[in-house]
């Protein structure tokens, strides 16, 4: 129990002193996960919209697949990306293994299904509501898709947030493709794993507290924005 008190004290000292090593780790964590979320949204939102609005054979299968992929185990994703990017792999020539780019790819693969599946559900509900009115007005498909995305934007923000939460907290994928190299690919979760195995529980807990604080404040910020915006723009 002594570790906890020590950990909080250490975490506090680290944050207050703006320890450059700690800042580097935090910034890299945020850079990797935010980029992964942006990529996942660029792929997942159009995919979710297409499945929500489209009627095509095998649609139910696609929905089941997307929902199932939400539970992808990070280590397996890490392994697959590792095989893809390793020197012997098909993309080995790109020399991306053990770089932040590889970590971004792994996290994007991990959370794209989350963004696609959750946005599909939200957009399909809204589409069920709008569809007949849009049909009556002869709204073209692309305009309808744009209107759905725009009108559901606050709910979709929560989807992106769920993706960010998953990305910033996972360790299995980034440790395999990133390698936890100091000053290069070390992020908060891999650092925590390392410090724990080294026995430096205080530092590990300190980093954990920072990680939790970041996750909570990002969530709180987005929820506040959503609540405020909801009050003004839609009911």
């Amino acid at each position, binding site marked *: 129990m002594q570790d906890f008190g020590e950990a909080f004290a250490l975490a506090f000292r680290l944050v207050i002193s703006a320890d450059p090593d700690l800042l580097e780790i935090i910034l890299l964590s945020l850079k990797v996960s935010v980029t992964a979320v942006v990529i996942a949204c660029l792929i997942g939102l159009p995919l979710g919209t297409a499945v929500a609005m489209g009627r095509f054979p095998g649609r139910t299968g696609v929905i089941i697949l997307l929902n199932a992929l939400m539970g992808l185990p990070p280590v397996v994703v890490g392994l697959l990306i590792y095989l893809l990017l390793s020197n012997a792999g098909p993309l080995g020539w790109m020399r991306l293994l053990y770089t932040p780019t590889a970590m971004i790819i792994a996290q994007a693969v991990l959370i794209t299904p989350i963004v696609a599946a959750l946005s599909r559900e939200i957009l399909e509900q809204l589409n069920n509501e709008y569809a007949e009115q849009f*049909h*009556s007005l*002869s709204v073209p498909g692309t*305009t309808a898709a744009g209107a759905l995305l725009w009108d559901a934007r606050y709910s979709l923000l929560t989807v992106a947030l769920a993706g960010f939460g998953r990305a910033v907290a996972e360790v299995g994928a980034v440790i395999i493709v990133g390698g936890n190299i100091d000053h290069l690919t070390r992020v908060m979760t891999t650092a925590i794993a390392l410090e724990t195995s080294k026995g430096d529980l205080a530092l590990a807990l300190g980093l954990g507290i920072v990680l939790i604080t970041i996750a909570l404040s990002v969530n709180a910020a987005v929820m506040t924005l959503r609540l405020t915006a909801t009050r003004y723009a839609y*009911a």
Partner: protein
Amino acid sequence: MPDAIAIGTRCAWPRAIRDGDCLGETRGLVYQAGDSRLIDGIDLMIPRGSITVMMGPNGAGKSLLLRLLHGLLTPTAGQVLWSGRPLDAGLRQQQAMVFQRPVLLRRSVAANIRFVLKLRGRPDPTRVDEILSEVGLDAHAKQPARLLSGGEQQRLNLARALASDPRVLFLDEPTANLDPASTAAIEAIVKRAHSSGTKIIFVTHDLGQARRLADDVVFLDSGRLAEQSSAQTFFNNPLSQAARDYLDGRLVL
């Protein structure tokens, strides 16, 4: 630009309706869901220029017929013709529909109107204000549409339908959930649209409303056309037993 719907074709009128040009018609219209024929062989003539009120007991097929006429549903058999032509994209853009429950975009009142104007290629900001003041909603322009009262929401819904300058306006029990004042407001807007040349096809259960609005009445019963008469004939001396029973308030089983 496709031909306007107003270019009519001559057609034979059912005996109770005055001779005139026919704006739309259905021929042997059938709509089937599973084994049941919900619309069962309807031959309907839709007169030009009038307010046509569609009545009938619950489940008679009024809303279905309205959706078939507007092209929201594809008939199992038979045809829907406007100006002698099957519905196409151009004709459909000259029609608009007001549903019983208003489906408003999760945006401001003005943005709901703007959406339709933009859709029809006329994004004129002054026009938004004009349309809103015509239905008495100009003071609410910036409010979220979904925070309006039920009556205001339906007025906005109607205003949005009229913003596309339709030649034909379908209304599916637009005042079923509204109080008398809101109902009167809706009826006034509909009458104004009619007097500026829009063909109105109005489904209602409210006999008083039907008497106030109808030039001619289409009466459906169990998916069939029971009667199509001028309003005077329909209310004073209905031709079909089904309509007589309905007007007498007798239960039709």
